[in-house]
């Protein structure tokens, strides 16, 4: 049979967003793949050049709509380095706690969507139910469920409310119990195992060559996690392990994410313990005044270069739920960043699609691409 190109997307249930996977098929077998991005490109890096440092935080929530707080975190770490602002310890702990709650929410969202792709409906409902509890927690101190706008240059906007730590502990206990349910639903399901084990293999060597990071890399047996290898914020003081798997397949990525959720729960518990005993400021005392003032509308003095502010560059790297996220901020002494550059882990993981799709069948595409954990808002920016 002759080969032909098939468009899977831009609107296809497999895409979990808006992108196009072009696959070349020979009968049922994939012989080539060409992912195509850009349908959700909003020019966030360009808009950043026209917003003051604190205003960019609003855009960071929109960058990745399932893990907004991690993007706020990486952007602000880079800005604080560029502006020379130091963050109080309590704010660092709140940031780490938010980041880990966000990781839990993101992984549960992934689990719900991925397992539904495979054809199991119950885990989707379980996942959505438990994700809501985390969103309730985030709402109780950020005021929002998806677009938080919570972190600020020099710390976070407000402290957690009274009684928050006890409520959070209860949710963590509940989740720890429910992760067993998640696993029981999948690990004993023949349908799940047949559609995950041995599919979408990407070995460690190819992962490193292609720059693939996050759970995909750890599922290939490489224990790289920037929380431990390039520690930032309060992570050096926290105790956790890096789960890996040697399958390098879809099932391995599922196992790694499940274990990561357990580790996140352990980290959140440690931060809650610390927060209970260390009251204090959550916003730095000395922050340049211009970071918070609103921007005049474009067209009128939208890019003012006022000499006199210190110049500098900031670079930060974090382990986002999807992988390694980088932010690079250039401060040219103006009220706006001169250039902001992000590295999106999802874009790199999708870019490697050819290497983990070729040789499998068309019906294997939804589980394989599902295991990548795609957030198109983040890859297209």
């Amino acid at each position, binding site marked *: 049979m002759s080969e032909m190109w098939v*468009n899977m997307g831009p609107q296809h249930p497999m895409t979990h967003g808006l992108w196009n996977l072009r696959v070349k098929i020979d009968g049922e077998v994939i012989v080539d793949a060409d992912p*195509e*991005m*850009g349908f959700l*490109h909003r*020019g966030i*890096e*360009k*808009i950043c*050049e*026209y917003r003051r440092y604190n205003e960019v935080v609003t855009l960071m929530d929109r960058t990745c709509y399932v893990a907004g707080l991690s993007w706020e975190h990486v952007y602000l770490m880079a800005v604080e*380095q560029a502006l020379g602002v130091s963050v109080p310890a309590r704010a660092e702990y709140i940031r780490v706690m938010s980041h880990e709650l966000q990781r839990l929410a993101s992984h549960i969202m992934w689990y719900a969507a991925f397992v539904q792709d495979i054809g199991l409906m119950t885990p989707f409902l379980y996942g959505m139910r438990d994700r809501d509890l985390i969103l309730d927690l985030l709402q109780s101190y950020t005021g929002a469920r998806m677009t938080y706008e919570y972190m600020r240059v020099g710390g976070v906007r407000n402290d957690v409310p009274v009684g928050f730590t006890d409520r959070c502990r209860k949710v963590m206990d509940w989740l720890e119990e429910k992760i067993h349910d998640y696993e029981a639903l999948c690990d004993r399901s023949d349908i799940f195992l047949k559609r995950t084990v041995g599919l979408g293999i990407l070995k460690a060597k190819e992962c*490193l*060559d*292609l*720059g*693939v*990071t996050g759970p995909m890399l750890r599922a290939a047996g*490489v224990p*790289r996690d920037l929380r431990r*290898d*390039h520690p930032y914020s309060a992570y050096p003081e926290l105790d956790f392990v890096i789960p890996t798997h040697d399958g390098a397949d879809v099932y391995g990525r599922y196992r790694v994410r499940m274990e990561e959720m357990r580790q996140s729960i352990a980290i959140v518990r440690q931060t809650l313990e610390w927060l209970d005993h260390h009251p204090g400021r959550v916003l730095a005392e000395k922050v340049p005044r211009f970071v918070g003032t609103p921007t005049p509308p*474009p*067209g009128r003095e*939208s890019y003012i270069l006022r000499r006199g502010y210190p110049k500098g*560059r*900031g*670079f*930060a*790297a974090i382990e986002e739920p999807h992988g*390694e996220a*980088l932010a*690079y901020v*250039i401060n040219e002494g103006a009220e706006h960043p*001169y*250039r902001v*550059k992000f*590295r999106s882990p999802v*874009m*790199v993981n999708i*870019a*490697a699609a050819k290497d983990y799709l070729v040789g499998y069948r068309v019906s294997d595409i939804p589980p394989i691409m599902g295991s990548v954990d795609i957030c198109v808002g983040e890859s*297209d*920016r």
Partner: protein
Amino acid sequence: MKAEEVVPRLQAEFPSAVQSVALRPGVLARLEVDPGSIVPIARWLRDQATFCHCSMVGGVDWVERREVLYLLWSDEFRTYLEISAWVPGEDPHIDSVSGVWRGAIWHERETWDLVGIRFVGHPDLRRVFLPEGYEFHPLLKSMELHEPEELEVKRRHV
């Protein structure tokens, strides 16, 4: 090799290509290198200094010239290395490192798309985010942010 030895040994290996070395927080060092010798430097860093992961390639428009940024990660040293190469603003181009790290292919496509730096020897230099046939590179400082307008673009696939 230890992490501190990487930069001196690189300087000894490429005495004229490494133009300046600066220390910055968060990375092992920031090196400014000659754009003509980026590929041998990249290959040396990968093979001799274990920088096996090309984390990011980016571009910055400084109006008269443009800067190409590379951030590399080494699993052995557990650190980043920042490499910067300056290319002229007129017809900016630099050799592609996609032959050294395959992961750089999409980063270089993105840099071409948004900042307009051409990567010589790139296997597949198409745009990533913007449609093929779009004539602008949006992250250039000459592009002002303004209200959206209708632009006629070629269709991607016919």
